[in-house]
């Protein structure tokens, strides 16, 4: 960035007087030397002026207001506070409104990005909301948890010189604006076409699929195993990153257009897919996610004080164990090691910190460059005091005579040659084993698809990794059964699951039209 700023500041049109003024501000005297004392006095002014220049030249995103790291590491309130209207409009004006919007092509649910941003720039937030929700059923969620830096924002032309437009933050602003608005116009419930569709799971894939088929006219019912709807949005992603009230509000929006949700129904146990067909559903979408936690298979993994990230997160997020008025217990941790370096690992580490841990370590066998977590999450974790023990691979969990964790034995690693996916393979440095002094170990090395449905549904086939086989058109090997999201791919992101749900909705519509001899749906 330093280089870019320099270029922008040194405008050729500067007069002698202007140059003299700059020199004076920096504290350069007649001899050309810098007076440090003077410069230090001037620093606040300088910072302000330079920032203004950068903002005026629209080089950087408007920063996201955040809770102070020290304060927030002790509470579960949302970390990022969101733009106000003024900032949102100013940020929206950074958009160049490209003729060929690359950003949109980078979005798995094809949000009409430049169009909604143009409306934000005009201050017409309602119109902006309508544009977003024409393709995205969960804008308040996506605005918060999408990895925009790898999707829409990575394609933004502004990013070539400076930072991309803050598309995610604007999306969040518009969604929050709409949510906070009191006198909303009544929603139109799309008329029913008389055909029934069942959706399994109320996570991002299921909600998106259900919302889309409902808008096409289908009577849709979501079957959810938990007492609360939202899947990973409620059990996995913590309150401070995605408030549960936001998820609930988005789900209410879907219910308002006629999506039905049956909680406490475990498809495969309470009812089978074949029985759903007997009940008149013409198509079934499986969006049951990847809920099965992986363990390390090292000694000591069943000691007390070893958790899967899923357990820690489910206790705190879904069951609200961090609140005194809820019954689900959680242990008081002191020193915690979180194994893994993905987004879930960051979430687990930050949750542990908020639950009162004095030390939280991320233990990862590769280096910083290979960490799968979003940069933003890593930075947030670091700011909150999470320590990173990289290039260390846990080889055993040690316990005391009562079976409680007292340490995590690690083998330091070196990076060798890149593997097939291009990630450098860690190689153990055996002789230098050491023990990290911890009382709690949280395993966050990924999840795989839950076998409940595939084991109770004859006709479904699965991949080597346990995902349900589904083609590009979301068809599984079983007629009229569609699948998408983590249930197919293994753990990925919210937005990819939403994209898969959206895709499945289209092909469900195509399928039901086809079997009834109706004209095909319009090409997307």
């Amino acid at each position, binding site marked *: 960035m330093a280089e870019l700023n320099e270029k922008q500041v040194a405008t050729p049109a500067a007069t002698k007087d202007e140059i003299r003024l700059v020199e004076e501000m920096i504290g350069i005297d007649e001899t050309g030397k810098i007076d440090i004392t003077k410069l230090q006095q001037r620093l606040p002014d300088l910072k302000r002026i330079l920032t203004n220049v950068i903002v005026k030249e629209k080089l950087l995103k408007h920063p996201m207001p955040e809770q102070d790291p020290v304060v927030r590491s002790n509470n579960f309130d949302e970390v990022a506070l969101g733009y106000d209207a003024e900032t949102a409009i100013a940020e929206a004006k950074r958009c160049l409104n490209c003729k060929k919007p690359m950003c949109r092509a980078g979005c798995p649910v094809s949000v009409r990005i430049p169009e909604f941003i143009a409306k934000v720039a005009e201050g017409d937030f309602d119109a902006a909301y309508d544009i977003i929700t024409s393709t995205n059923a969960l804008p308040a969620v996506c605005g918060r948890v999408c990895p925009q830096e790898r999707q829409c924002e990575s394609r933004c032309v502004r990013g070539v010189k400076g930072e991309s437009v803050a598309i995610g933050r604007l999306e969040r602003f518009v969604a929050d604006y709409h949510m906070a608005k009191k006198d909303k116009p009544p929603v139109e419930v799309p008329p029913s076409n008389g055909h029934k569709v069942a959706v399994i799971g109320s996570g991002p894939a299921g909600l998106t699929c259900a919302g889309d088929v409902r808008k096409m006219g289908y009577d849709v019912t979501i079957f959810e195993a938990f007492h609360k709807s939202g899947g990973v949005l409620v059990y996995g992603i913590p309150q401070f990153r995605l408030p549960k009230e936001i998820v609930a509000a988005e789900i209410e929006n879907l219910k308002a257009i006629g999506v039905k949700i049956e909680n406490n129904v475990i498809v495969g146990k309470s009812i089978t897919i074949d029985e759903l067909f007997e009940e008149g559903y013409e198509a079934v979408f499986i969006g049951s996610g990847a809920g099965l936690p992986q363990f390390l298979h090292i000694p000591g993994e069943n000691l*007390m004080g070893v958790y899967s990230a899923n357990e820690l997160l489910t206790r705190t997020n879904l069951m609200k164990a961090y609140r005194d008025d809820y019954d689900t217990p959680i*242990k008081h941790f002191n020193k915690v090691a979180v194994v893994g370096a993905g987004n879930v690992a960051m979430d687990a580490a930050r949750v542990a910190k908020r639950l009162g841990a004095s030390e939280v370590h991320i233990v990862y066998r590769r280096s910083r460059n290979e960490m799968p977590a979003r940069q933003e999450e890593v930075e947030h974790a670091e700011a909150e005091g999470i320590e990173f023990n990289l290039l260390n691979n846990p080889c055993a969990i040690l316990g005391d005579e009562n079976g409680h964790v007292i340490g995590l034995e690690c083998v330091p690693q070196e990076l060798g040659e890149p593997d097939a996916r291009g990630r450098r393979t860690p190689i153990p440095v055996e002789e230098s084993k050491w023990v990290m002094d911890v009382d709690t170990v949280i395993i966050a090395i990924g999840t795989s698809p839950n076998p409940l449905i595939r084991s109770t549904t004859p006709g479904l086939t699965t991949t080597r990794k346990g995902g349900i086989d589904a083609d590009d058109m979301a068809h599984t090997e079983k007629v009229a059964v569609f699948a998408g999201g983590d249930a197919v791919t293994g753990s990925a992101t919210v937005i990819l699951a939403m994209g898969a749900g959206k895709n499945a909705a289209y092909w469900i519509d195509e399928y039901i039209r086809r079997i009834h001899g109706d004209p095909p749906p319009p090409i997307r």
Partner: protein
Amino acid sequence: MYKVVTKRFLNDAKTICLFEIEAPFIARHARAGQFVIFRLDEQGERVPVSVAGYDRQKGTVTVMVQAAGRTTKMLHTVEQGDYISDIAGPLGKATEMEGLKKVCVVGGGVGCAIAYPIAKEMHERGIEVTFIAGFRSADIVILKDELKEVSDKLIMCTDDGTYGRKGFTTLFLKQEIEANIDWKRPQFDRVIAIGPDIMMKFLADVTRPYGISTIISLDPIMVDGTGMCGCCRVIVGGETKFACVDGPDFDAHQVDFDSLIKRAAFYKEEQDEAAKHICRMTGGKRNG
């Protein structure tokens, strides 16, 4: 919301209570050996409890719950006609009884509530059932009549001898096995034991020398009950299993009881503390 259509205490001491709850989705597929997870209200925890019965026509499931921790104590204050917030299931695998001819079912305390539907289904299938039901003392004995109906031979015993025979279930199981040998009767194809972890551990020790296949039903701490959290992991034959999806029934001779018993006590402090804070005025009912 799910309606409690029947509530009835099963013993004089009122330690174990029967609840019949409207839950059509569970009633439809529930089988002996499976469990359900209930939640009292918005602030409640998810608590697993075994299926004690079901009525497919009425769409109800029956559970028999012992008041132990905060939630179960609060459940005991729920009255007939009241609603609980959630109940989901059936979860876990049903007890396998394919090909069995002669079985000894052993229940310890509230474990008899879980053993009962298993014995019942076996009895209906024509399997010869010997039922050994053990309790601490007479005031907590449950299902006296029901157990008689579903077993070819019923042995009731109490630790203090206040009801039935005096002694532990292990003693009577050993006697029955020995009697089969002495009288040259066919030996049990299987022993199914359900009760406190420590009882099951000793029962496993009883059957091991005879090589009798022994299955126990475990109830470790769970959160979701669908294989998601891994909290309920148990070591069976050196391998880690999830009781919620791989069980709850396991081979007693393969289970690592020491780990099981330690893990079950992990939240004991929290549980004891929480149980102390049940309102004496309302019996723990929130919001009223």
